[in-house]
């Protein structure tokens, strides 16, 4: 399959890239890892007149902690996250996530920024970032601005990014003591989108209650979902089995899946319930010092 013809632009700096996007307007798309965009172009579901390839901008690729945040450059590959000792040792929720995105070959090119900016409700990072309380930084003609992840996904395949903006960084608060997270995905086979998946993040207080809770849901709605009622039911509570069951049911209630080849609405909602309980148990175990 051959994509429709387009003009190729390869800026070497963020400023050059955003200027190109502003100049080319609605007909231009950013080419990051390309692992979603190129298949869409081959199927002619996307036909951009211009591609602005950001792969030649080295300052967009990094993983580091500074000023209380883990900072991931937009062009950072999923494989880089997987191989990062920092991610492996301190951000288990992210490490879980990057291991189940597509397949190992796709992860060698696919980027964290692309996974978020493409805003496919079936993508895995959005739920993880919702659970972790992340913030994205957008760079555009008017400079940089920060967008809380809760305000980022505005619709299916739609984000708060303006036409001339590029997602340059996602920042996640550094883990506090006794915190833990997990991402649990049900997929029919490697490379398939999730039937359902759940990201859970918890911070335990000194008295054994949950001080902070984040729960994000993948591919069970037209956008990634933050299960706020479920989070609220766990916050301040002791995470015993009865509470986990109640919270898991609230997460299932928050999901709005549609029926497809992966299952019926009832099945997917029930999977959200099961996966939420599993993700929470694993997150709690990790918050208590386990792997």
């Amino acid at each position, binding site marked *: *399959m*051959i*994509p*429709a*013809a*387009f*003009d*190729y632009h*390869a800026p070497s700096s963020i400023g050059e890239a955003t200027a190109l996007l502003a100049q080319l307007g609605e007909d231009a798309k950013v080419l990051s890892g*390309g*692992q979603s965009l*190129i*298949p869409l*172009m*081959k*199927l002619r579901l996307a036909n951009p007149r211009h*591609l602005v*390839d950001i*792969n030649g901008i080295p300052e967009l690729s990094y993983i580091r902690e500074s000023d209380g945040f883990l900072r991931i450059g937009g062009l950072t590959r999923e*494989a880089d996250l997987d191989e990062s000792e920092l991610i492996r040792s301190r951000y288990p929720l992210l490490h879980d996530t990057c291991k189940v995105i*597509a*397949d*190992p*070959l*796709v992860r*060698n*090119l696919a980027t964290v920024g692309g996974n978020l900016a493409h805003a496919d409700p079936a993508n895995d990072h959005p739920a993880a970032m919702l659970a972790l309380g992340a913030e994205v930084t957008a760079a555009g003609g008017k400079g940089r601005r920060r967008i809380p992840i809760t305000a980022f996904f505005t619709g299916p395949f739609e984000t708060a990014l303006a036409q001339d903006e590029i997602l340059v960084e996602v920042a996640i608060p550094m883990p506090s003591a006794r915190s833990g997270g997990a991402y649990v995905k049900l997929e029919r086979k*490697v*490379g398939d989108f999730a039937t359902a998946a759940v990201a859970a993040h918890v911070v335990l207080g000194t008295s054994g209650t949950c001080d902070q809770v984040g729960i994000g849901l993948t591919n069970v709605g037209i956008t990634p979902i933050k299960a706020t009622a479920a989070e609220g039911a766990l916050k301040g509570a002791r995470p015993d089995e009865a509470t986990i069951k109640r919270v898991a049911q609230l997460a299932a209630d928050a999901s709005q899946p549609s029926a497809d080849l992966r299952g019926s609405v009832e099945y997917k909602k029930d999977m959200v319930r099961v996966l939420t309980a599993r993700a929470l148990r694993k997150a709690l175990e990790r918050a208590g010092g386990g792997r």
Partner: protein
Amino acid sequence: MHIKLSINGEKREADVEPRLLLVHLIREVLKLTGTHIGCDTTHCGACTVLLDGRAVKSCTLFAVQARDREIMTVEGLEQNGKLHPLQEGFMAEHGLQCGYCTPGMLMTSFAFLQKHPTPSEDDIRHAISGNLCRCTGYVNIVKSVQHAAAKLQEGRA
């Protein structure tokens, strides 16, 4: 657009349309037909090549993105008329039947063994999870990679 790249250590140049996929450059312009096109939808991994040492699906990358980079295809495995231990492993352990997925399996395994010289069976199965084989059931492919890993270890010892 005029591009230069290195393929299996050889410098090549080509005039390409931006929309030309890397796999089409490799097969149709550079005439290296060892790299296969299977699903053409980023699923099967038959088109796997190495881009600066990393295994990628060449049907999901534009040729212009490979400019000034190093590509390695299955043709680059054999050195001075001698098959690579992975190729020998696939022969010895019957790691192929129809052979369609084999170039991709070889390239993925090649990149994998560079980073993981003593892998477990589970590691190998995860590593090749982006390469589909419809003949073998993977059992002999895993054995082939294990065969190569052992041979390469002997070579290092």
